[in-house]
C-alpha cells in the first residue's frame, strides 16, 4: 500500500498528470530530477541539515496532559509542527523543493498560497537560497491573512493578487499554473500541498513524511507502542499524508483525516471534499472533487483559508477508497471551540487548520480508554489567525 505512485503517477485510479501539453516536459524533467536527487546523499544531507539547523527539527511530540485528563479518555500527544521555523509544517516541503530547484539550476520560483503559510515558507526558503519568488494569493485570502502578506513582502517576495473565480486558494492554484505555463523554461513551481499533477503528490509526501517518521519514533520511545489513532487536518492534505504515510503498513493504527465542514455538510458552504465530493479531475490529478452534476468544480468554504479547497491529494483518495484511512468533517464552530479549548488547557493557540484536528480529537478521546494513545498533527500555530478569530468571537461573521 506504500508502493504508490506507479510510474504513471497513479495511486490506484487516482493521480496522473492532467495538464496542458506545454507543461508535460517540465513535469517529466522534474520527476527525473527528483528521482535522481532523492537518492543523492549530498542532496539528502543538505535538506536534512536545513530541516534540523534552520527549521529547528525534530519538532517535539508533546503529551497534552491537561487536555487528556480533562477529556478523561485516551492519552493525547501533539506533534508540534507549529514549532517549526515560520510556524507550520509547510517549511518541510519548501526546504526540499527549494534545494531541488537550486540543484536543477532554476533561479525563479513561484508558489500558490491559501492561508499564507506555504507562501511564507516559500518566501523564506527563496530568501535563504537566493531565489526570486512570486507568490499567488487570492484577493479574498489576502484580506483574511494580511499579516502573512506583509511577512512575504518583508522576506523579499512579490505577492500577486488573484482576482479570478473565487479569489481563494482554488483560483490561486489555477493562476500559478497559468503563470507556470507561460514561464516554464526558467521557473520552478513550489507546489505546497500533496495535490496537483505527478510528481508533486509523491514529492510533497516524501518531503512531509518526516512528520510521521519522527512521531513514530517518538511515540515508541514514550509509550513503547504505536498509537491507536493518528489524526490530522486535510485541505489538500500535505501534513496529513506526511503524518499518515509512515503508519500505513501498521494495521493497528487508525488514520483519521479531518476535513472542513464549514457551516455544515448539509449547507452549500463547506470544504468537505471526501464527505460530499465524487471522483473527478481537478488541477492536474484524478481525486475526490467537490463538483456539481455536470463536473463544474464548486467553490468551497471554510473558516480556515488553508482548508478552503474543493480538492484533495490523490493518495488520500486512494487511502479512503482502500478503507485504510477515514475522513470526517468538522464545522467552523467546532474548530473555533477546539481552538479556545486547547489555548486554555495547554497554552497552545493552534492554527485554524490544526484546530479541526483538535476538534475531532476532543470528540474521539473520551470514547477511548486511558491506555489508548492518539497522536495529533498540530500542523501550525494560530498567530496568523488571531485577527480573524477576534472577528468571529466578537460575533462578526466577516
Amino acid at each position: 500500500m506504500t508502493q504508490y505512485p506507479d510510474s504513471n503517477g497513479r495511486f490506484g485510479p487516482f493521480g496522473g498528470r492532467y495538464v496542458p501539453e506545454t507543461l508535460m516536459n517540465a513535469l517529466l524533467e522534474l520527476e527525473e530530477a527528483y528521482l535522481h536527487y532523492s537518492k543523492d546523499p549530498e542532496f539528502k544531507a543538505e535538506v536534512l541539515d536545513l530541516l534540523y539547523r534552520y527549521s529547528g527539527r525534530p519538532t517535539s511530540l508533546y503529551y497534552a496532559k491537561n487536555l487528556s485528563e480533562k477529556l478523561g479518555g485516551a492519552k493525547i500527544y501533539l506533534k508540534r509542527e507549529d514549532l517549526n521555523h515560520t510556524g507550520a509544517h509547510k517549511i518541510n516541503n519548501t526546504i526540499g523543493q527549494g534545494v531541488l530547484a537550486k540543484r536543477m539550476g532554476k533561479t525563479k520560483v513561484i508558489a500558490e498560497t491559501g492561508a499564507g503559510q506555504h507562501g511564507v515558507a516559500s518566501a523564506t526558503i527563496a530568501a535563504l537560497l537566493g531565489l526570486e519568488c512570486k507568490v499567488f494569493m487570492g484577493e479574498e485570502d489576502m484580506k483574511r491573512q494580511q499579516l502573512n502578506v506583509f511577512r512575504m513582502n518583508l522576506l523579499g517576495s512579490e505577492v500577486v493578487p488573484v482576482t479570478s473565480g473565487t479569489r481563494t486558494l482554488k483560483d490561486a492554484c489555477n493562476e500559478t499554473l497559468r503563470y507556470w505555463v507561460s514561464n516554464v523554461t526558467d521557473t520552478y513551481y513550489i507546489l505546497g500541498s500533496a495535490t496537483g499533477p505527478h510528481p508533486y503528490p509523491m514529492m510533497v509526501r516524501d518531503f512531509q513524511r518526516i512528520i510521521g517518521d519522527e512521531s513514530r519514533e517518538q511515540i515508541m520511545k514514550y509509550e513503547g507502542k504505536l498509537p491507536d489513532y493518528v489524526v490530522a487536518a486535510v485541505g489538500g492534505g500535505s501534513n496529513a499524508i506526511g503524518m499518515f504515510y509512515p503508519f500505513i503498513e501498521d494495521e493497528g493504527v487508525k488514520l483519521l483525516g479531518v476535513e472542513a465542514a464549514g457551516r455544515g455538510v448539509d449547507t452549500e458552504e463547506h470544504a468537505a471534499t471526501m464527505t460530499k465530493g465524487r471522483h473527478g479531475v481537478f488541477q492536474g490529478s484524478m481525486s475526490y472533487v467537490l463538483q456539481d452534476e455536470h463536473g463544474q468544480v464548486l467553490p468551497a468554504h471554510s473558516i480556515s483559508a488553508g482548508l478552503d479547497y474543493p480538492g484533495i491529494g490523490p493518495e488520500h483518495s486512494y487511502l479512503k477508497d482502500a478503507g485504510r484511512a477515514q475522513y470526517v468533517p468538522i464545522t467552523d464552530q467546532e474548530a473555533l471551540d477546539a481552538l479556545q479549548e486547547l489555548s486554555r488547557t495547554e497554552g497552545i493557540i493552534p492554527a485554524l487548520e490544526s484546530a479541526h484536528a483538535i476538534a475531532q480529537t476532543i470528540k474521539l478521546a473520551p470514547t477511548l480508554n486511558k491506555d489508548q494513545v492518539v497522536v495529533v498533527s498540530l500542523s501550525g500555530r494560530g498567530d496568523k489567525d488571531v485577527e480573524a478569530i477576534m472577528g468571529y468571537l466578537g460575533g462578526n461573521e466577516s
Partner: protein
Amino acid sequence: MNLIDQKFAELKAEQKNALIPFISCGDPTLDDTVDIVKTLEAAGADMVELGVPYSDPLADGPVIQRASERALKYSVTLTDCIKLGGRLREAGVTIPLILFTYYNPIYQFGMEAFFELVVQNHISGLIVPDLPIEEDQELRRLAEQYNIHLIPLVAPTSKERVVRITKQARGFVYCVSSLGVTGERSDFHTEVDEFLDLVRRSSDVPIAIGFGISSREQVARFEQKCDGVIVGSAIVRTIENNVPLLQNAATREEGLNNIKQFVAALKG
C-alpha cells in the same frame, strides 16, 4: 469520411488555408451562439471550435475565462454545448464542428454516452486541453470507434514528444504558438517557425496553429507554414464587446455584423 478531413482536402485542392474560429458556447446565451456561428460561417470560417465553459479553465487567459463565467451564470452544460451541434445543422450551418472541452465534464458525463451524443449532434472533432497522451488512451479508443477526431495539442516545449503525439493525431495537429495560456500576443518568437517545421515533418495530417493570433497580419504570417489558423480570444473579445448590442433586439443585427466584419477581415 470525417467532415474535417473532407474540408482540409477541399481547401488543399483550392490551395487555401482553414480559418478556425473558437467561440465559447452560451456566451452570452445559447441562442446567441447559434446566430454567431452562422455569422462566422458567412464571414468565411472553414470550421468552428465550440468551447465548453468550465469553472477552472487552466489553459485559458482572462478573455476566455470571462466568457466561461458569462455562460456559467446561466448554467450552460456540456449537454447544451453538444446539442448546439444539432441546432446549428438545423439552422443551416454546414462547416465541421469541433468540441473544445476540459476533461472533467466528459468524465462525469460518462464516456460512451458522451460519444453517442456527440455523434448524434454532428460534431466531428474533439479537443481536450488538459489530457496529454499519457492520460488519453480510453478517450482515444472511443473516439476512433465513433469516428470522432481527437485533435492533439503540441507545444514548443513538446520536443521529442512531437513525434509520439503527431503519430496518433486525427483531423489535424493543434500547434500551440508559444508558451502560455490563450490570449492575444503582439508578436511571436522566431523559434516558432522551427517548431512548425518540426511538427510538419512528423505529421501525416494537416497542422493548424493557435494561441495568441488576433490580426490579419498574424493569420497571413502563419498561413505560409500551416494548413489552418485558429483564432480564439480575439473573436471572443469581439463578442464580449458586442454583448450589449446582441442583447437588444433593435441592435442585434448590428452586433452580429460587427462580429462578421472582424472575422471576414481575419480571412483577408
